[in-house]
């Protein structure tokens, strides 16, 4: 059994839980939205306490063979590219560790040559020896390919469907392995089978009608809660940001709708983690942090080498997956998208304290899995 086999039917005949969620997505008056937010905040405190977990993304590579209209790393884009060597990844990780992060998300584009067999695993092994919690956000794999990565110390897997609307998905993903909508849809289950403790899903808001994406996301969560019952699930609601390629979101979601969706998710799924990235502005992040968010990034860079300038001597231009020329004149690799909250981790942590939330840096110990830990 896999989600892809049931997706259409589950969308059409929502479970009682999803029906409740859809009710909460109906247009609301201001006072109704305020009540929703109060309930959402109270449920979050009850289940997660007055705490906020912090993490940082660490980009390994921006090489990519996929053609995705909205993504800065899309193979069509003539951008400055770089794949960090594992030791360079470790140097970036050490920098983030010094800033306080004990939870890192390793992110990479998809490329069979540069991001190839064993590379992710090696990066995970090096980083997990010094950082308590390591997750990955890389191209979907088979269960058997995930297992060595889990053994190397990866605790979490993040994979966003981008859009759950199949015609939109097909029109935006025109080339590369990512074209396969259904294979991506079943990725969280393959990750669960491989032993990831935390599984993150999400949709990229702005590509298609937000209420449809939210509905599908709730259907997916509802299914995964029953199927992947041993995994801690998180959900992300990233909104499209400006990036190389100049893609304009065809269906932007406004701040008010974003808040409503966040609160509706919290009320429907009180124990699921909700992630907030630096794609959002500092003002909005401060506003929604207490309402339902449980995991936040801070001070992020979305290009490989972005924290310490690692790999600067290997910058190059790649078009359609092939290296065209070196780019040593460039200052850094090209980012995936522009971040919106530029505050340092320390400033974000202090702001959280002002909001009455304890910033939690460490919430996992690899010793639980028997992984040698050197720090």
């Amino acid at each position, binding site marked *: 059994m896999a989600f892809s086999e049931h997706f259409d039917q589950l969308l059409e005949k929502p479970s009682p839980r999803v029906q409740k969620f859809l009710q909460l997505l109906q247009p609301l008056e201001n006072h109704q939205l305020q009540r929703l937010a109060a309930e959402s905040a109270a449920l979050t*405190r*009850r*289940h*997660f*306490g*007055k*705490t906020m977990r912090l993490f940082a993304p660490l980009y390994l590579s921006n090489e990519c063979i996929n053609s995705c209209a909205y993504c800065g790393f899309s193979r069509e884009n003539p951008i400055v590219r770089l794949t960090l060597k594992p030791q360079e990844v470790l140097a970036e990780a050490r920098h983030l560790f010094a800033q*306080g992060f*004990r939870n890192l998300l390793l992110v990479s584009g998809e490329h069979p040559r540069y991001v190839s067999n064993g590379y992710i695993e090696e990066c995970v092994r090096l980083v997990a020896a010094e950082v308590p919690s390591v997750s990955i956000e890389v191209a979907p794999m088979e269960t058997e390919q995930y297992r060595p990565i889990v053994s190397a110390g990866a605790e979490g897997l993040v994979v966003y469907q981008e859009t759950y609307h199949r015609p939109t998905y097909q029109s935006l993903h025109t080339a590369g392995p990512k074209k396969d909508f259904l294979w991506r849809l079943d990725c969280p289950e393959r990750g669960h089978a491989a032993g990831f*403790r935390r599984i993150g899903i999400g949709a990229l808001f702005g590509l298609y009608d937000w209420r449809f994406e939210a509905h599908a996301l709730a259907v997916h969560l509802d299914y995964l*809660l029953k199927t992947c*019952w*041993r*995994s*801690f*699930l998180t959900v992300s609601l990233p909104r499209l940001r400006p990036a190389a390629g100049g893609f304009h979101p065809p269906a932007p979601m406004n701040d008010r709708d974003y808040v409503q969706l966040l609160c509706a998710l919290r009320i429907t799924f009180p*124990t*699921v983690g909700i992630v907030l990235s630096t794609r959002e502005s500092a003002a909005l992040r401060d506003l929604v942090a207490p309402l339902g968010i449980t995991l936040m990034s801070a001070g992020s860079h979305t290009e490989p080498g972005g924290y310490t300038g690692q790999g600067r001597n290997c910058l190059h231009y790649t078009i359609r997956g092939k290296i065209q020329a070196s780019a040593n004149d460039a200052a850094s690799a090209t980012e995936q998208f522009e971040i919106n909250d530029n505050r340092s981790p320390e400033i974000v942590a202090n702001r959280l*304290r002002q909001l*009455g*939330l*304890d910033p*939690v*840096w*460490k*919430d*996992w*110990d690899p*010793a*639980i*899995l*028997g992984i040698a*830990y050197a*720090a």
Partner: protein
Amino acid sequence: MQTQPLIIANRHFHSRLLVGTGKFSSNEAMRDSLLASGCEIVTVALRRADLSGKKDPYANILDFIDPQRYLILPNTSGAMNATEAVRLAHLAAAAGLPKWVKLEIHPDPNYLLPDPIETLRAAETLVSEGFVVLPYINADPVLAKRLEEIGAATVMPLGSPIGSNRGLQTRDQLRIIIEQANIPVIVDAGIGAPSHAAEAIELGADAVLVNTAIATAADPIRMAHAFRLAVEAARMAYEAGLPTQSQFASPTSPLATFLNTLQAN
């Protein structure tokens, strides 16, 4: 007025309130709440602590718990099976924490309900290694007896799921556990108000463990003190001999006087 001490593994405690350290708005709020609760046993999730011995300033929860004042009870939250829980207990002991462990194995991250099979397995191993084991369990009387038989120091049945604040939803099962136990019974999880804590103690539970209700209160220090008072009052009432409950009103004095008069004649 003193109440009887709580005795776990031959160690005496005056307080029958154990407090958990998660979910507070700051380590300082946690420290002050512990003090106000009058507790002597404090649980700490090992995954949030620094066990490397390098004094990680970003994982310094243990720096805020005075080991002279409190018995630090490491909990194995995060472990999904017996192997992982045993490993965590070893790690805590190696880091210099007491050889006491709150055994907590919940493979389900949503309701955090304990796995009875893995818990029994881990308890057997840890008891045989000399640990004082306090297992967190569902309110299952047979499991409680099985754990007692293999040498658990207490059992810690839940009142309702962790963080739910729903009180003693498992009341009938708790009664049986308490009635049958030869080791202390500590009601853990679901206690959302001082009245819930008092109810558990009045039922005959030896102690209660509270975390969410204190940590997430608007004023955690006052709430900690409120729990202290409730637990003390309930224990005193329990020892004083709570009257049995009846369906009927019982007009004691006039009738008793009349009957006594009859007997005297």
